[in-house]
């Protein structure tokens, strides 16, 4: 308990601390040209502490940990290790001092074996055979089973993360940095990870845990430091905060409560799907079976469901990436469009935002203006007599930037250079600025921070208020409850009858997502059993 009290009040902590900080940054600053990624950041991490680093995309979390891991040199300020100022010449220097890191985007080599991957993260003084043996031992000790001889490309995402963690543990680090480790894990895999982390903490190690899942941070972390716009905002005890208060500090002010304009009126049907069935395009795809629904202007229909139940196939059928045999299966603005191409559907007033931002929603290595052209060429006056109107494409970028608060380094950067949240704001913005009559959007806020998510959801609501029909596919039930008027559930390629949002309780949706029916008889059965 005294530990917690100390951490709750950071100022006197420095004066009478019994346990000195293991790692400390003092006024650490990193500039890239005129851009200040980290502005005089002070942070202290003690042994036996899981310290959360919270912040929105672009807040400076990655820059800070890169400096602590020696990947970049700070422009000013210092890093102290056991109270002594140190200059890290590189990651291997950091590792030799006892600083380990588990990367968010795995730093693995697909064509090398597990053992080779681990060896590359060590200093190489140990013979390879001894290292392999120790690898098996460490992975067993921590309950992270791995076969050292397998090549990485054969492994699942969870197994790949295990390699990263074991690789870091092999160096017996005193201080371990984890960059959004649960972003790619299933809830079960995440629970296993938390057990490992608790154990590392009990062994006296310190952990810096980067995340923007606030419930996770509240559950796991002893201390939290919040960054915003490159500055430190606060160090606090997350157990004494609410998710809302943490989010407030991250975003800077209240996260705008998403609000629907009262008295939204539904108008004519703008997107109608009639008995749509479609064989899967791939061997492991899902067959769409007899999907029907009607979506009026001014209405948001949410589609819930566990991933891989046909949502991707439905998106492809609606967007025109796959055509149906019968033109009447998809009707946009009263016109049978099942046989029409993507461009023709866009000309009818439809717009589409796929789940995958890079590679599907945008061409990663093309500029934002070029990406604006790629979906806007058909119906937005960006092409004149066969020539691109560069000014018009740039104007679209500027408008999206302004309206949706897209943060980027220059006016027209490559799509891949934007962070996930900012790119998603741009993609959604790009489509909304075309004033679509129908918007089909898949996982609009997947992997996006709270502030950007609120902006995107508000934009979808505003679009519906303006009279458009909006179809949102999402696995996030809270999101659907917040914005949708009706919610339907996809299961094994079939779509349930939509429920009014007011009646769609978590329990009901959960049953539908598990494939149960909502017929009263069967529901009683399920409870009885």
């Amino acid at each position, binding site marked *: 308990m005294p530990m917690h009290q100390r951490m709750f009040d950071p100022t006197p902590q420095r004066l009478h601390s019994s346990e000195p900080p293991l790692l400390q940054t003092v006024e650490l600053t990193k500039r890239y040209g005129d851009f200040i990624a980290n502005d005089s950041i002070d942070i202290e991490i003690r042994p036996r502490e899981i310290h959360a680093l919270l912040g929105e995309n672009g807040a400076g979390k990655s820059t800070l940990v890169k400096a602590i891991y020696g990947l970049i040199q700070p422009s000013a300020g210092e890093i102290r290790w056991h109270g002594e100022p140190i200059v890290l010449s590189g990651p291997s220097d950091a590792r030799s001092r006892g600083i380990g890191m588990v990367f968010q985007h795995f730093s693995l080599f*697909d064509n090398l074996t597990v053992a080779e991957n681990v060896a590359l993260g060590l200093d190489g003084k140990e013979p390879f055979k001894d290292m392999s043996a120790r690898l098996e031992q460490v992975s067993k000790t921590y309950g992270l089973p791995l076969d050292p001889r397998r090549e990485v490309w054969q492994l699942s995402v969870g197994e790949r993360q295990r390699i990263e963690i074991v690789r870091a543990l092999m160096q017996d680090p005193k201080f371990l940095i984890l960059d959004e480790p649960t972003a790619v894990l299933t809830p079960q895999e995440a629970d296993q990870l938390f057990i490992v982390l608790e154990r590392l903490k009990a062994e006296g190690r310190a952990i810096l845990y980067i995340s923007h899942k606030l419930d996770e941070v509240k559950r796991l972390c002893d201390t939290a430091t919040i960054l915003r716009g490159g500055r430190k905002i606060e160090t606090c005890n997350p157990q004494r905060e609410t998710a809302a208060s943490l989010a407030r500090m991250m975003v800077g002010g209240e996260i705008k409560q998403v609000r629907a304009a009262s008295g939204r009126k539904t108008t004519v049907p703008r997107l109608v799907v009639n008995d749509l069935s479609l064989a899967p395009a791939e061997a492991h795809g899902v067959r769409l079976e007899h999907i029907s629904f009607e979506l009026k202007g001014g209405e948001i229909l949410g589609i819930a469901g566990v991933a891989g139940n046909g949502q991707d196939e439905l998106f492809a059928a609606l967007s025109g990436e796959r055509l149906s045999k019968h033109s009447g299966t998809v009707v946009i603005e009263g016109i049978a469009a099942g046989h029409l191409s993507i461009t023709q559907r866009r000309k009818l007033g439809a717009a589409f935002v796929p789940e995958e931002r890079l590679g599907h929603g945008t061409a990663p290595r093309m500029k934002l203006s070029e990406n604006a052209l790629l979906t806007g060429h058909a119906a937005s006056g960006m092409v004149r007599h066969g020539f691109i109107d560069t000014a018009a494409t740039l104007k679209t970028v500027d408008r999206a930037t302004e309206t949706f608060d897209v943060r980027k380094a220059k006016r027209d950067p490559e799509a891949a250079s934007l962070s996930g949240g900012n790119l998603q704001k741009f993609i959604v913005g790009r489509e909304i600025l075309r004033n679509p009559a129908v918007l089909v959007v898949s996982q609009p806020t997947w992997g996006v921070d709270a502030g950007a998510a609120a902006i995107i959801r508000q934009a979808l609501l505003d679009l519906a208020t303006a009279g458009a029909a909006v179809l949102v596919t999402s696995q996030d039930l809270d999101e659907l409850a917040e914005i949708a008027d009706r919610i339907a559930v996809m299961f094994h390629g079939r779509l349930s009858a939509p429920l009014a949002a007011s009646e769609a309780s978590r329990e009901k949706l959960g049953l539908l997502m598990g494939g149960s029916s909502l017929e009263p008889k069967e529901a009683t059965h399920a409870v009885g059993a």
Partner: protein
Amino acid sequence: MELVEAIILAVLAASTPLLIAATGELVTERSGVLNLGVEGMMIVGAACGFAGAWLTGSTFIGALFGIVAGTLVSLIFALMTLGLAVNQVATGLALTILGIGLSGLIGAGFVGERITPAVHLAIPGLTEIPLIGRVLFGEDGFVYFSVALIVGVWWFLHRTRAGLILRACGDNHVSAHALGYPVLRIRTFAVMFGGACAGLAGAYLPLAYTPFFIPGMTAGRGWIALALVVFSSWRPGRLVVGAYLFGAVTILQLHAQGWGVGIPSQFMSALPYLATVIVLVLLSRARTGGSSAPAALGTVFVPDR
């Protein structure tokens, strides 16, 4: 009997430059760099190698000249593609064009001159053994060196830590950088090694294969070496097999003409490339995931600092 021995000797001689040049390119490509300038580096190595031997009268010094010349030409490539992050394919092609011109300039004064060819090993009692004697104990130094070179490269790539790091750079330069390895420096050394080997392979031609220099004497061997690396699916063991196979095809093509076999010689010349295409198809069908080519091959890397 004598004919068989003669054919084997000819195949060894024809294969050795392919083996040396391809070994160098294998290391370069394993580090993630695609240097299409092998032909250019080879031909400059040939001109400089001949010049060195003609000036000093020593085959050994001639070979050193070839190695240094090949390395210097490869440094131009390294400066462009690693230092300035220019497209590797374009730079490699330009390097070949440059090399052909440069070798003509250097070698212009030497056309028509003759040098003493490289001495062959002679061990009394062993070299005279019929059939295998001259093959095993009567070759020039290049042949023995080329075998030692590929064995050494295999050992380096698969048994040493430095080799593992080099392969890691070729697989994923972003990860290698994140782990703190100097990707560009490692790649520069790999490119230089490739240049040195290409230079030596080029020098072999006027120093041992034919004891004089003619412009354009590499005659596409650099391109065959490139195809050979793909044929070997970037593995030293298969590279040896491929090099002798490709060498045999070139010799067979000469003999086939002599015997009056009705296969057009152009078809025989095309065989190595055809074999490479077939191997590529087989490879892509055999493996379901991962890739045999270094994953970062030919991609530009700019570290963030």
